């Protein structure tokens, strides 16, 4: 700075009230999130879809139990509703306590895609340049987007799950089954369900960052969360016991296991599933942050 005329003017006081900080970037990202009409419609639609799908899934469980109790088994006696409910194999996320998460896959699909879009659309429109001009350290923007997505995903999943359970539980209590908020695993699965969706949203954000492309990011996210487990299910047909145990380590399976309770032989415990899923989230987040920091935009 050689000229005196400038130095007086060139540095507006960089006081705390003046500059950029994480909370301001977070505020900016929340403004971005809620000022897109498409996002608002998508969030509302997701809520409706989570509850709607949960009701259908509950109806399916109800009719299975209903069928088992109304038809005579091989022994000539009918099952009680309790026996029917318990005959559902553990660890398949089909137990009644898991009802809050019955519509969760829709949440994963939509919120995961929304997460990809949240950053990929900025690359597509060039908005990312304005964003990084305002917050040139870049990682604060990534962290702020992550916080927005985690909060939105968590709140939406919990609200959708709670409403699903409130609406579905009377169907089963009406059969004489014991099912309320105090039932083992209900509250646990509701709270962990939100974490799972948040984790998928973070994977989506990372994919959007790495690929800078909405369509590509969403395709890969769907492949990871929905196509891989489908493909993995065929591994059970491979001779040898080893392959049978592989699919449970996939992100969707490990994450899904995290939402259930109880131990079952041969499959991961819930906390192990949770840790493996967390590992996957970090596996995507770290390269994405690295790429965002280093790449030209």
């Amino acid at each position, binding site marked *: 700075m050689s000229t005196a005329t400038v130095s007086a003017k*060139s540095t507006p006081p960089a006081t705390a009230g003046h500059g950029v900080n994480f909370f301001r970037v977070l505020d900016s990202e929340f403004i*971005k999130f809620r000022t897109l009409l498409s996002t608002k419609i998508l969030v509302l639609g997701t809520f409706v879809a989570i509850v709607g799908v949960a009701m259908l899934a509950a109806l399916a469980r109800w009719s299975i139990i209903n069928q088992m109790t109304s038809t005579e088994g091989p022994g000539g006696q009918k099952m009680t509703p309790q026996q029917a409910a318990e005959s559902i194999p553990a660890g398949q996320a089909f137990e009644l306590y898991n009802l809050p998460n019955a519509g969760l896959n829709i949440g994963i699909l939509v919120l995961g895609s929304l997460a990809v879009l949240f950053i990929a659309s900025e690359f597509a*429109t060039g908005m990312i340049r304005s964003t990084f001009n305002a917050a040139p350290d870049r990682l604060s923007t990534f962290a702020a987007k992550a916080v927005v997505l985690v909060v939105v995903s968590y709140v939406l999943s919990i609200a959708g799950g709670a409403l699903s359970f409130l609406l579905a539980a009377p169907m089963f209590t009406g059969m004489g089954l014991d099912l309320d908020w105090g039932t083992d695993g209900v509250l646990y699965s509701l709270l962990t369900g939100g974490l799972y969706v948040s984790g998928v949203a973070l994977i989506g954000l990372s994919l959007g960052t790495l690929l800078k492309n909405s369509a590509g990011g969403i395709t890969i996210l769907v492949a990871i969360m929905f196509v891989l487990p489908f493909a993995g299910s065929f591994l059970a047909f491979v001779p040898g016991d080893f392959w049978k145990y592989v699919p449970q380590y996939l992100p969707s399976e490990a994450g899904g296991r995290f939402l259930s309770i109880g131990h079952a032989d041969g499959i991961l415990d819930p906390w192990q599933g949770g840790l493996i899923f967390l590992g996957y989230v970090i596996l995507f987040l770290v390269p994405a942050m690295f790429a965002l920091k280093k790449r030209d935009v």
Partner: protein
Amino acid sequence: MIEAHGLRKVYGEKTAVDGVSFTVQPGKVTGFLGPNGAGKSTTMRMIMGLDRPTAGSVTVNGLPYARHKAPLHQVGALLDAKAVHTSRSAYNHLRAMAATHGIPKKRIDEVIDMTGLSAVAKKKAGGFSLGMGQRLGIANALLGDPQTLILDEPVNGLDPEGVLWVRNLARYLAREGKTVFISSHLMSEMAQTADQLIVIGRGRIIADTTVEALIESQTRKRTLVRTPDTSRLGVLLAGEGVRVDQNEPETLEVSGIDPRRIAELALENRVLVYELTPLTSSLEEAYFQLTRDEVEYHSHLESHAGQAPGPLNGGSGTGAYRMSDAEAAAMEGSQR
């Protein structure tokens, strides 16, 4: 104040910016001039920390851009009129940008007013015309009332009133003591706006000077000579540093020799000359002179018309033909 030292950017095989060093001073409008693909935008993106230089460094107001605590108050940039999410309204875009620095709502309204966007501020930015997009980009740049302003091709797509507005704005901000750095490929625009010119071609700085000095340095004193016997006079004038061009019948454009000497030669050799007019170059011609070899993408037409359509030959592409020295010499034999 912007200071670049040995700034270099290589994309794969291609060197976009090849070790440029320059200083952009406050209190002046500095034009950054160069043909398309010369490296203007890449240089500006490196200033803003968006592209990482392959080598070299650049500081704004004494610090690399990313190290400023309040970057929007230091530098406002219009790098790309499309740096806006298409589905968000102009007002909400500015609101999100302002939030990062805690800039009050009042300032958002101010820049919207200042850029004449009031009527469309609540509309989606994706529906904006190029000109409106530019205005929004400029509003975005002014948001933090920055000390340094970087505008990449700001007049692109603006109507004449908008062009005048950008020109006045740039000059006003410079008078306020701010650093104003404007890129353009339009010489005519820079001639009216800039005080200082940095000319870039193929990633290299080819001139860093004032507008007047650039014209002065690049102007070869030329003389329009009308004579019925162009080929004979051409041969007589030929010599070291003399250039003879023929654009019209019976008309020569001669540079490298003064009008008096031309008249003397004509008189000694009894060649009729019925007009002898000294010509001065415009800034535009000086610019073409300077960047002729530095243009990245030559248009096909240009290889026939050495001088791009400018004020001198009417810009109508009338088949103007400029002879090089060698061609002029070769023509001597064939004519008459």
